[in-house]
């Protein structure tokens, strides 16, 4: 910002608002991480203070790694999230390209139909989905979860990506056609790199609900081999006794992978914006 457009009170005001928001957003996360390093007495005695030498205790983490197969749960969550993300991005981008690039009968209707899923939550269909999975023998498999999450993520992905695909220069695609590139090459080599920032946005929006979901793992894949982290953490939630140390430790650990994925995508996002391709 130039000196001429800067004013001290406005700068202070803006920063105050942003800092307040940051504090509110980070508060629960920090609380969880802080308390995960404390003893049970420490958590209940003074939940808002950071761990002191007296209350510091790694009992939560040792329980998590000792009891239950948490590494395995992490692996399941990661497989489900990454695979679903891959399919959502691939099919979402392909459908978005078709809707924005080709004129065919029913194009608009197809676009509306595909976007319908944004308004109707997929959980309304849980019973039908369960019956379907039972009938096809997919219960207690990660495939079931991947299929459901792909379906859940696609509507928004198609909606956003088709809008962005419309902005890709027609001339560029036509130049590719004249040079003899196939439609697939045009899509993968010319169009996809140009919509990378929007792909990153869609990836972030799709990834977080999948990683955090408890509903479908609980219903479709509750077996020990297919448990995800969120479901695994339920192990420590008892009807009478809840092992808060372990739960907080499990939740703290669950933040990590999703944070790493987010950092990867947000870097793509920034790189995509700054590289400025056409014109």
């Amino acid at each position, binding site marked *: 910002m130039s000196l001429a457009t800067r004013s001290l009170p406005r700068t202070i005001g803006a920063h105050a608002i942003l800092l307040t928001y940051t504090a509110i957003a980070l508060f629960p996360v920090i609380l969880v991480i802080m308390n995960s390093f404390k003893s049970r007495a420490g958590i209940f005695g003074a939940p808002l203070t950071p761990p002191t030498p007296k209350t510091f205790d790694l009992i939560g983490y040792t329980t998590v790694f000792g009891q239950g197969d948490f590494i395995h749960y992490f692996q399941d969550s990661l497989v489900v999230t990454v695979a679903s993300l891959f399919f959502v991005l691939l099919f979402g981008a392909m459908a978005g390209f078709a809707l924005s690039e080709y004129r065919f009968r029913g194009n608009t209707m197809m676009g509306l139909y595909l976007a319908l899923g944004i308004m109707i939550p997929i959980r309304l269909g849980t019973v039908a989905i369960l019956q379907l999975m039972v009938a096809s023998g997919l219960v207690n498999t990660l495939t079931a979860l991947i299929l459901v999450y792909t379906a859940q993520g696609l509507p928004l992905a198609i909606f956003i990506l088709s809008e962005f695909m419309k902005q890709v*220069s027609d*001339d*560029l695609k*036509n*130049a590719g*056609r*004249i040079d*003899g*590139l196939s439609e697939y090459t045009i899509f993968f080599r010319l169009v996809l790199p140009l919509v990378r920032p929007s792909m990153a946005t869609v990836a972030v929006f799709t990834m977080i609900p999948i990683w955090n979901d408890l509903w479908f793992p609980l219903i479709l894949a509750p077996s020990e081999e297919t448990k995800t982290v969120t479901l695994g953490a339920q192990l420590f939630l008892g009807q009478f006794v809840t092992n808060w140390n372990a739960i907080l430790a499990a939740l703290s650990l669950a933040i990590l992978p999703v944070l790493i994925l987010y950092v990867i995508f947000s870097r793509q996002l920034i790189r995509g914006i700054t590289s400025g*391709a056409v014109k």
Partner: protein
Amino acid sequence: MGSLKIENVKKAFGPVEVLKGIDLQVTDGEFVVFVGPSGCGKSTLLRVIAGLEDSTSGRVLIDGADVSVTPPAKRGIAMVFQTYALYPHLTVKNNMALGLKQAGTPAAEIERRIKVASVMLSLEPYLERRPAELSGGQRQRVAIGRAVVREPKLFLFDEPLSNLDAALRVNTRLEIAQLHRRLKATMIYVTHDQVEAMTLADKIVVLNAGRIEQIGSPMELYNSPANEFVAGFIGSPKMNFIDGARLGETAKTIGVRPEHLSVDTKSGAWKGTVVHAEHLGADTNLYLDCEKAGLITVRIFGVYNAEPGSTLYATPDAAKTYRFGGDGKVLK
């Protein structure tokens, strides 16, 4: 090598008819310019020739062969786009090489053609750069280079100068003209700028609302326009059109170009007041509000001092006055 024939080509997008039956013959080595106002169908026609759009009916023949169902890459054409349309992830060299690689041209031959084209367009220092590192003029030269290396039967230009600034536009126009002289290739060029059309073309095709209004050399169109539309479109400033009835003529409309009017302070055919004067140095454009003829433009060569509000008499050159009938056609 490089003739084109278009037979009764029609194109409709749903109920909207964009091309209403186009017939055209382009002989080998000709530079043909499609010109017309926006929405007249000139770009659509070019896309039909390129194979990027299907025609609703009619045939396109390149070198006598019907290419209506041939994919663009196999038609032996090359196209230069308004927005350059360079591949952003490839270097200048690879941008030019891509089409040839796709066609399976041997590497040594690709190398040779790129060398020739980059010398011709003075692109040698930039071969390893990416499009983002080039200026607008350089990018358009790369786009032209990409077309040249294909050694096509037909060059197609889709408003290639519209994104360049005025000075660069003149330079690039010159380069395209030289390119045509050197390659002796058939070129089809789309523009809405009649100056580009007049300066580049062997043959101009004037399009309006999906129809060809007239085909002819630049001077033919200037000297003997077939109808009111062509007369108004070719020439700048625009031809003056005066209601025939106001002048007591039998023709519906009388047309006279601004440069074919002379002015005098004392006497003349049409008395009028100066509304505005534009001094361009080499010539002066006067806007006169005449009692008989209405608002007209007069172009005077050299400097002419006229104050707004002063009275002047304008006289048309009788030999260069056009008479149009009720249907817009020229009356002989």
